[in-house]
């Protein structure tokens, strides 16, 4: 009943594609899945694939909570996999029985977000940090202080429009625990971001390539592989390696509860996890692959893609308690009030 009612609310218009056979509706990070691989999958199986995109984990969570999302496959990050599973929003697909599971690097198996490997198969992992345009800024990028307590960069910084990664990064810089429920600790985070605000031109998660590539801003909160792709397209950008650490993320395929095309979703997961296809996906997406790939055909190596091989600590984002999450929200709302 709740689902039915929610589907009619004005705020969240939801797409309701027909649950026909031979369909697969994917909801993934913008430009995160190789279009060639999708075409190849459709050709091999005759399954029609529709892809919609999101630009924050929060968007994906909200869409699933609204019910009847119509999606068969979603790719949230690890902490949101945990929240979605705890909230009963995911279909138990016995992921550990899939061939894809055997392809996984051991360090991604049986982790805290999906201890029994019931729900998820990872697709990509990487870090969130910040990137600078080297035509606009030639200073050091070895600490978060460059971004959070800017001198040279003041007036030329953009952050993301959601608190998730930004607050985590500020916590790394200040040495505050992720998901702390201690108000005094979070006040420090707030004070840092508030003091930084006059130096920030925008809080936005869209169109980052252009904004940073064109030099409209000299520094942007961003992701490793996206920076790599922009650099390879000719832009003079560099991904910072702050000594305090980077915010780690791992995106996984999950199937929303009640999805119409579960078998197709599993088939796609298997398809994406074969060595050949995973290599092609790695070369397209330019984020690290959690499954086995063919090193001889991989485009990115430690030499030509330092973004993907950080030599600083990587601390993965956690699923916060509601109380801790409220503090994160309070920091953000007070910041933008």
């Amino acid at each position, binding site marked *: 009943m*709740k689902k039915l*009612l*929610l589907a*009619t*609310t*004005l*705020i*969240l218009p939801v797409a309701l594609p027909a649950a026909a056979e031979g369909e697969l509706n994917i909801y993934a990070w913008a430009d995160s899945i190789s279009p060639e691989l999708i075409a190849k999958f459709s050709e091999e199986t005759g399954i029609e694939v529709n892809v919609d995109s999101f630009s*924050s984990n*929060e*968007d994906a*969570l*909200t869409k699933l*909570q609204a019910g009847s999302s119509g999606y068969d496959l979603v790719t949230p990050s690890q902490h949101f996999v945990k*929240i979605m599973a*705890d*909230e009963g929003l995911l279909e138990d697909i016995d992921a550990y029985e899939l061939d894809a599971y055997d392809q996984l690097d051991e360090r991604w198996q049986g982790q805290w977000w999906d201890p029994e490997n019931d729900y998820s198969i990872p697709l990509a992992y990487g870090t969130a940090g910040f990137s600078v345009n080297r035509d606009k800024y030639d200073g050091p990028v070895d600490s978060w202080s460059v971004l959070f307590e800017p001198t040279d960069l003041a007036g030329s910084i*953009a952050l993301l*429009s*959601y*608190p*998730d990664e930004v607050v985590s990064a500020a916590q790394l810089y200040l040495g505050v625990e992720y998901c702390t429920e201690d*108000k*005094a600790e979070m*006040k420090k985070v*707030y004070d840092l971001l508030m003091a930084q*605000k006059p130096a*920030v*031109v*925008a*809080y*936005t998660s*869209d*169109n980052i390539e252009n904004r940073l590539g*064109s*030099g*409209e801003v000299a520094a942007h909160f961003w992701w490793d592989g996206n920076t790599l792709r922009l650099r390879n397209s000719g832009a003079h950008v560099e991904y910072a390696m702050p000594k305090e650490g980077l915010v780690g993320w791992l995106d996984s395929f999950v199937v929303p509860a009640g999805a119409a095309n579960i078998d197709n979703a599993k088939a796609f997961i298997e398809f994406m996890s074969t060595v050949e296809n995973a290599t092609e996906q790695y070369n397209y997406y330019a984020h690290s692959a959690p499954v086995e790939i063919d090193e001889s055909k991989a485009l990115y190596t430690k030499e030509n893609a330092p973004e993907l091989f950080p030599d600083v600590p990587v601390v993965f984002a956690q699923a916060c308690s*509601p109380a801790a*999450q409220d503090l994160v*929200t*309070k920091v*953000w*709302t*007070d910041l*933008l*009030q």
Partner: protein
Amino acid sequence: MSRTFRFWGLVPAWALMLLTLIVPILIVAGVSVAERGAYGGFDWGFDITSYRQILFTEGWTDELEFDPKYLAIIARTLIFAGAATAICVLLALPVAYYIAQQSARLKIVLLYLVTLPFWVSMIVRVYAWLIILGNDGLLERVYRLFGGADISGFLFTPGAMITGMVYSYIPLMILPVYASVEKIDPALIEASHDLYGGRWTALRRVILPLAAPGLTAGSILVFVPSLGTVLEPMLLGGGKQLMMGTLIQTQFGGARNWPFGAAIAMVLLTLVVIVLLLNARRATRQAEVAL
């Protein structure tokens, strides 16, 4: 026309209103007093915490204190929406008047041009302003061409946001104003000149009063969507200051506090209803005076 026919004839309209307007509003009202789910979502119940939160929040100490931050966001939204409406009035009146003066054929072409932007997605049109206002964008280049100093920073300002709002909604002002001024009998303006009224007097005493219904309708059509605008503050304003639309969005997204988002939506709805009621009262009073 029998009574039964009049009743049953209206049933489809009532059903449509009930299903697409009344029921959704009741759901939003219900969510606004529901209990908040731990990670978003909600459980039906009755809890007015969300409304209390508009005025009182726990500060950085644990005490519940009066906190004007949401009132400030509401006030800011009203001011920006009012400014956008005022600018639309100033721009639309001469444009509508000019169109009304043209030949019948040209009128159709010009009106078509006014509505033309509606054929393109709103997001695309707002993105176009990113290119115009951005660093080294069209505006800066033109400014430099005419000898202006090397300046930048049009984008991500309240000005950029209001520009985007005016651009998005001005056709909604031009069309009703045109409908009003088009009906003005030129003889009335001649008459005012015959009575030694200058151009200013003609504008103030003849054209403006006759254009008033169009200006009122246009102002409502511009003000109401401006109150709930989301795209312009995010893309052109740089998301640095919350407006009611973006505040509601963050509550359903990042903040995972649906009841509070719904409560703010109810406040927004109440503001809109107040605007419409004030207008309705004025219209009735005018009708009484006319009688």
